[in-house]
């Protein structure tokens, strides 16, 4: 997919009309993510229940369309899932971005698969993974 098509078909929608943008009170976890090359800053807030299921999650902060959209798509995917599942999805995403994902991995990525073409925009990879890396960090720093 061409850059412009990636924007048209996937990024713009999630950037202009994100489903999970905002703030929640009393999140279980909260984490900031920064992308130094673009000055993007996002904040992730997660509500996770006792069994490790992500009940709700939102992001806030400012950033480029790629990071915002990727973050929104990510939250679409992981809300309602367990932390283990979301870690598996993150791994699949990271491998996809490097062009190394298997067919099964692509499958569990659902809509996020459309971001595979970000691999053709190497300079934007950092934007695309910002939310994912931040989520990864949440779970890493909050090992049960």
């Amino acid at each position, binding site marked *: 997919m*061409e850059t*412009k098509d990636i*924007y048209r078909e996937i990024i713009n929608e999630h*950037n202009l009309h994100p489903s999970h943008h905002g703030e929640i009170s009393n999140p279980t976890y909260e984490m900031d993510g920064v992308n130094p090359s673009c*000055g*993007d*800053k996002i904040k992730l807030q997660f509500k996770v229940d006792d069994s490790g299921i992500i009940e709700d999650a939102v992001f806030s902060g400012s950033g480029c369309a790629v990071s915002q959209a990727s973050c929104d798509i990510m939250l679409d995917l992981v809300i309602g899932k367990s932390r283990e599942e979301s870690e598996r999805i993150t791994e699949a995403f990271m491998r996809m971005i490097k062009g190394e994902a298997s067919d099964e991995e692509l499958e569990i990525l659902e809509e996020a698969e459309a971001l595979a073409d970000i691999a053709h925009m190497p300079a934007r990879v950092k934007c695309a993974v910002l939310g994912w890396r931040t989520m990864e960090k949440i779970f890493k720093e909050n090992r049960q």
Partner: protein
Amino acid sequence: MTNIFKNDFEILHDDKYIYFDNAATTQRPKQVINAVSEFYRTINSNPLRGLYKWSVKSTAAYENARSKVAEFIGAEDSSEIIFTRNSTESINLIAHSWGLSNIKEGDNITVTILEHHSNLLPWQMVSRVTGASLTFIECSSDGEISDEEILNKIPSNTKLVSAAEISNVLGVRLPIEKISKRAHEVGAVMVVDGAQSAPHKPVDVKALGADFFVFSGHKVMAPMGIGVLYGKLSLLESMPPFLLGGEMIESVSRYDAVFAPVPEKFEAGTVNAAGAVGLAAAIDYVENIGFDIISQREEKLCRLMIEGIKTIPFTKYFGSRIPETHSGIVTFNIEGCHPHDVSSILDTENICIRAGQHCAQPLHEHLGIPASARASMYFYNDESEVERFLEALKKVRSWLGYGN
């Protein structure tokens, strides 16, 4: 291709691409590329050390480059020219060598809020290590610096003032003469970061009142990996060396060393003679075009671009309202569009601009913008490129999903 200024730049022959990232690095004319290749093909050897013909010729070529740089910026003596890798290394050298040995607790260091990180972080370091204070000269939203700022932010305990001659974000020229005058009044040393000025205007270190002046070869069409530090001879002579090793010595014993005179004292290890030769060729090239032509073309292009941007809805540019004072640099933002996305979209039209904070985060915070897009032009750019750029700019918002 009707733009004869592109003739010597093979990379620019493909009209498909518009290169508007000249403030980051310029392109190299074939004269520079060939000068470097020619060095390797005919006299390559380690200069300064050899007693045979090639080494004598390498040494002469290297020292000739030094003299050429000295003349280019109005230095009195070629031994006031130290070759470094880039402006960043030059400033670090000043900070470590002059800064750490002359600045103490209770002293003050002044910079401006417009500085590139390379002219800020080294002074943060000196301030942290020595306990000296770090003071900022602020600017207006247009990039103007008032006389009061200069007076107030260079207090009498100031030991060093460092300022860019031209801002890499706003393109504005800073009132260096006024700043250096005040610096000298309080007995401070004046450092001028010429990374963005040396490519665009004649430099006279004496007229600037610069005790130190730095610039990068790669921003003035020379190869990467060669930079310049000018320092007043008396200062350089008083300073300890920075990097150690190689031919910068007079004699070495097991536990001690006596250092060579300036400039060798500051050039540790094998020098980048080919890079210096490339820089000499680049200076020849600049002088052959002439700064009058260079500024004339840049001014015309800036005027065209700024007038055009003014007519595009949701788009605003930063810096001076007078296009002629932009030194080829036009920094802008489109409402609702992150500069990174603007740059990616323009890239699909093969237009190369920069987006982000341009290594000037404090200035962006001062201006109240998280990031910006920057088109920076040089004399080899032309009007048709600016027009194509403006056409593309008009469509960015719709590509990013906005109704208009």
